[in-house]
């Protein structure tokens, strides 16, 4: 009976998630490129063997992980500070709350073009500022060692509001009298952050981490517009590499393999994280 009630949802998931995944898996065991005249030909596990020894794939995996971890942790810290501030009572809070959300409401393509202009050499504001301060030209987007930081900065700017929103909602579920009871027990305000706010906010922090890590791991549009993966592939993400394989090299079999490889890695990371969190008691098993 219970299964029957869940059937519509399960069917939907099978349709929009199960079918593409099955199709990708099937494709990853075929050669399907310009060389085969775009006709899928079974090639055993050749795509997967190639993936394991593909230095660019592993390089991109590391770059994707670096991007995801850096941007999500910065976003979390910033969002926590902003959410705590927006949870206080002060004049004009409503307007600031609305303004804070704006970056998230902008389409990524638009905001990425904006950031490309900010980093533009020699006309962008950043370069102008450096020149005004008498600093040498930064030329950030052209430097393979630093370009990834520009992608992180733009992502932090755009998605901090999303985490802020989730954390702010979480903060508002904490009853005020818990803080009052804590004060009467002799606690100072900064102590309540550790004793009350953070423990009660943990589910919301985990939720936003899950959302954002999954999203950041699949980052495409921001990087495609800001750097196109360059310079020298130094900002290329897995999604960009998969796109490149499909759309430029017209190798759909291998593109599917790259995609699945990234997906499997992300799944393993999340499962390991869940097990770790459960073992230290942060996550409770669902009953």
């Amino acid at each position: 009976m219970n299964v029957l009630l869940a059937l519509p949802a399960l069917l939907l998931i099978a349709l929009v998630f199960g079918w593409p995944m099955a199709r990708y898996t099937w494709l990853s065991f075929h050669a399907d490129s310009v060389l085969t005249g775009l006709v899928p030909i079974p090639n055993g596990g050749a795509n997967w063997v190639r993936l394991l020894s593909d230095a660019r794939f592993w390089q991109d995996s590391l770059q994707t992980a670096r991007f995801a971890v850096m941007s999500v942790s910065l976003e979390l810290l910033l969002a926590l500070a902003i959410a705590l501030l927006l949870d206080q009572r002060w004049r004009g809070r409503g307007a600031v709350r609305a303004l804070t959300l704006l970056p998230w409401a902008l389409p990524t393509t638009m905001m990425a073009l904006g950031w490309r202009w900010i980093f533009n050499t020699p006309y962008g504001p950043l370069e102008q500022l450096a020149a005004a301060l008498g600093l040498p030209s930064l030329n950030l987007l052209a430097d393979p060692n630093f370009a990834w930081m520009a992608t992180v900065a733009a992502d932090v700017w755009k998605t901090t509001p999303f985490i802020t929103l989730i954390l702010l909602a979480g903060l508002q579920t904490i009853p005020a009298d818990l803080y009052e009871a804590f004060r009467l027990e002799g606690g100072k305000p900064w102590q309540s952050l550790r004793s009350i706010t953070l423990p009660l906010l943990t589910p919301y922090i985990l939720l936003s981490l899950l959302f954002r890590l999954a999203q950041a791991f699949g980052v495409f549009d921001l990087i495609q517009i800001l750097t196109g993966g360059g310079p020298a592939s130094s900002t290329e993400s897995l999604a960009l590499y998969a796109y490149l394989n499909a759309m430029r090299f017209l190798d759909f079999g291998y593109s599917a393999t790259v995609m699945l490889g990234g997906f499997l890695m992300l799944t393993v990371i999340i499962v390991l994280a869940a097990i770790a969190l459960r073992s230290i008691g942060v996550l409770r098993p669902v009953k």
Partner: protein
Amino acid sequence: MTLELQSVGRRFGENWILRQLDLSVNEGECVALLGASGCGKSTALRLIAGLDQPDAGQILIHGRRVDGIPARQRRIGMVFQSYALFPHLSVRNNLELGLKIRGLPVEERQNRISGMLDVVKLSAQADRLPAQLSGGQRQRVALARALLRDPLIYLLDEPMSNLDAQLRDELRPELKKLILNGPQPVIYVTHDQQEAMALADRIAVMRSGQIEQIGSPQELYDKPMTTYVAQFIGRPPMNLLEDDDVMVGIRPEHLYFDAEGMPCELINREWHGASQQFILNSPRGELQMISSGDTIVPERPTVAWKRDLEHRFSKSSGFRQ
């Protein structure tokens, strides 16, 4: 005087929600702040606790001014209406948090907590989360936390209002034993006159930010100074009959059937066993009446009361005459 409020006022914008509040509470005394919601009783409690600051007047504990002193330094044991237990901490950790903050050594913390768990009969539930406790158990955790604060004053904010009627009756003696019988003064906020009568040494009936009357339960019952107090104290409320420019008040329990009395029509009768309650329609208005369970209702009810038991209030001001 252990606790003193001297012409304390609090306003929100132009609206004074507490005006010129004077209150003195002695060692070991329990004073109930009784009133309808919005009368300012909870605000008064929050001012004493230091969770809110007065706009006028001063508050003294043991002769020392405390307005201006942060809540955490006032040594107040408070029980919140919601109990305000920390939902992510077990019963034991709920009790321990305050002791830890106040820097008690581990061993002493553990001794005091296990002793307290015995007192409130929660030793078996020590490792449960608040969500896994019954309402009565949660209340006892809140009481235990207030007791462990070792406070100068107890403040109880409607501690019974989240419990069902039967549990309330059961917990009242426990509350008396644990807190009310101690040497610290207790301020007990409630909107339930029965609870105030049962627990408090004195009751302050509050109305629109002021104390309407303060006195022992008996004084308020025997000699209410206004029609408001007269109708707030006692269940069912006092009957008020108009008589020229006077309101005549008669308690329902002071009415009796008498052949010489005022003819009435019986509208409703509730029989409670030991007592029974009537609603009667008289030429002077509707009357509530209580009598013992074995009273026989005459076929044509006529009611009377003893003249010396009636209360007289001014019709224009509502004050006792």
